[in-house]
């Protein structure tokens, strides 16, 4: 990654680790930690759209929270618009928040049922006069396909898709340069999901903000995002152009993920031969042994995998963390 690229990046994440303290097993037990994200590095350019893809427990939501300054990083750095998030004071961070906003997964939980739509939408606008705030709210609501007369209504008066539009309006009201969207369409029905995806595309074309889009659904990611970062158990396993990664996944985990995607029009699958899955939850402390986290599931695992691979460039913006590909 070149220096100039970094300078123009809206967001750059460098060797980021996020860990959580687990509840103590007993009062005097030593604290235990769960590594949610380990050594993640990527960046989002101005007006670009990058997807973080992974299954539950891959650390994608922890990463989003760390980027939003909601969780502290335990190592590494997050730079937003060139400024190190950790070096900002509380006031500076609050000031900078205008420039990066978030859209959450569950539109039923992300809007306070006791606040009017106007109050919800103008929440990110601090220090703005009431009349001006109202005008801004009306303006962004019209951008997401709602009207001025919706300002006085309450969230329960709207459907899931409309609520997600309201949440997007709230993120949009400060005219941010980056919107972090955490599974923004996974709670929505297909027809409404398409409405919201198209809206997000249109808004990007209009305002030129960058998206960091978190999803488990590769089809949605391919539709909206040019670049993709694949996460597995808190580690970046593959980075590249979404289309190329989908067409020719380099990492065995990405391959598994792409193959597992149900496809329309593929025809009915033949009943597969009986599989045996290993019982018990997967070994959560692969990080402790220093082996490749995917080793236990990998069909190609070899002796060399006992040492975790680091991300290496394959050229053309493609990187993969695997010894064997």
């Amino acid at each position, binding site marked *: 990654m070149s220096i100039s690229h970094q300078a123009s990046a809206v967001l750059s994440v460098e060797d980021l680790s996020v860990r959580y303290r687990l509840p103590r097993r007993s009062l005097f037990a030593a604290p235990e930690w769960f590594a949610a994200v380990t050594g993640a590095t990527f960046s989002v350019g101005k007006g670009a759209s990058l997807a973080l893809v992974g299954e539950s427990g891959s650390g994608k939501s922890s990463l989003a929270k760390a980027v939003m300054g909601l969780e502290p990083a335990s190592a590494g750095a997050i730079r937003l618009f060139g400024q190190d998030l950790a070096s900002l004071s509380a006031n500076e961070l609050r000031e900078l928040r205008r420039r990066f906003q978030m859209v959450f997964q569950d539109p039923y939980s992300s809007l306070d049922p006791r606040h009017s739509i106007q109050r919800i939408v103008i929440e990110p606008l601090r220090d703005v006069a009431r009349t001006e705030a109202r005008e801004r709210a009306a303006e962004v609501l019209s951008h997401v396909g709602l009207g001025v007369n919706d300002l006085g209504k309450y969230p329960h008066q709207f459907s899931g898709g409309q609520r997600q539009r309201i949440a997007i309006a709230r993120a949009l009201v400060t005219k941010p340069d980056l919107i972090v969207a955490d599974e923004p369409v996974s709670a929505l029905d297909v027809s409404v999901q398409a409405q919201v995806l198209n809206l997000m595309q249109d808004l990007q074309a209009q305002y030129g903000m960058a998206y960091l889009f978190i999803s488990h659904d590769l089809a949605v990611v391919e*539709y909206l995002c040019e670049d993709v970062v694949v996460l597995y158990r808190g580690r970046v396993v593959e980075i590249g152009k979404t289309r190329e990664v989908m067409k020719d996944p380099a990492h065995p985990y990405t391959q598994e993920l792409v193959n597992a995607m149900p496809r329309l029009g593929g025809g009915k699958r033949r009943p597969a031969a009986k599989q*045996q899955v290993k019982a018990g939850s997967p070994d959560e402390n692969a990080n402790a042994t220093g082996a490749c986290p995917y080793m236990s599931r990998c069909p190609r695992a070899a002796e060399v995998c006992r040492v975790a691979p680091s991300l290496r460039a394959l050229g053309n913006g493609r990187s993969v963390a695997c010894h064997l590909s």
Partner: protein
Amino acid sequence: MALLEVEHLTVSLPTSDGWVHPVDDVSFTVSRGEILSIVGESGCGKSTTALAVMRLLAENVRIAGQIRLDGADLLQLSEAEMCALRGNRISMIFQEPMTALNPVKTIGFQIMEPLLVHTSMSRTEAREKAIDLLARVGIDQPARRINAYPHQLSGGQRQRIVIAMALACEPDLIVADEPTTALDTTVQRQILDLLLRLVSETSIALMLITHNLAVVSEVADRVMVMYGGRITETGPTSDVLAHPIHPYTKGLIGALPRADLPPGERLVPIAGVVPRLVDMPSGCALADRCPAVIDACRRARPAERMIRPAHQAACIRA
């Protein structure tokens, strides 16, 4: 004769604005060894249809029509007779495996429970059968894992346990309500493969409720699309998905992000929102959202018509 025959099923629910019909005059059949998928968006009535077949709806709900299992109308059975059937000849798989399992009982206990209730098996026999079932749903070291508690298993394994419970009494019909929606993509693939294998091995009839057309495409023999409590289209899966007739089915397919979508191509959402049950149009339920709507659509409810062999749609414009 089909195993399950549902005829003119209507579910009515009292609200402050009068009676509404979450399921409105729905007829379909499921045969042994067949996977029928009921697909639609939230509020289309697919889950209510499933619960009606299981007779698990609330007391204040009115059910009309016939639900025949092997010729016997389930709606005529007493609650006690229905209890003897549930978990025995018909069983259900739920969306959320964690809430479907009792967290303080071992998985062995939970798989043995239907066996002890519905069969004359002894505890040792039931235990052996449970171990056998665990092996069948792909849990390794079943004899050891039988003493595990639900929280000691991953989400995918829990769903396997729920499937093992549903299989315990070797039912004729399994109703699966969004069985893979809460699971990761890779795990979803494994569970779908498991269901496919079980149906092909045992000639169970499977009613698969889902919102995911791609899942339908890979698993179902026949598909039934629902909207506003009514059937809009039914037919062989490949035919319905490749040559949809009803504008709603077309809309669902057009709105789906797909890997094969050419770059730059936009999704085509279905305009508007699903009407609430109390506001359901008197004519075609889709009338207010349909791009091909004409006046006649609003006047009368379209009947289901056979358009191609085994392929029906309820649209006057087809």
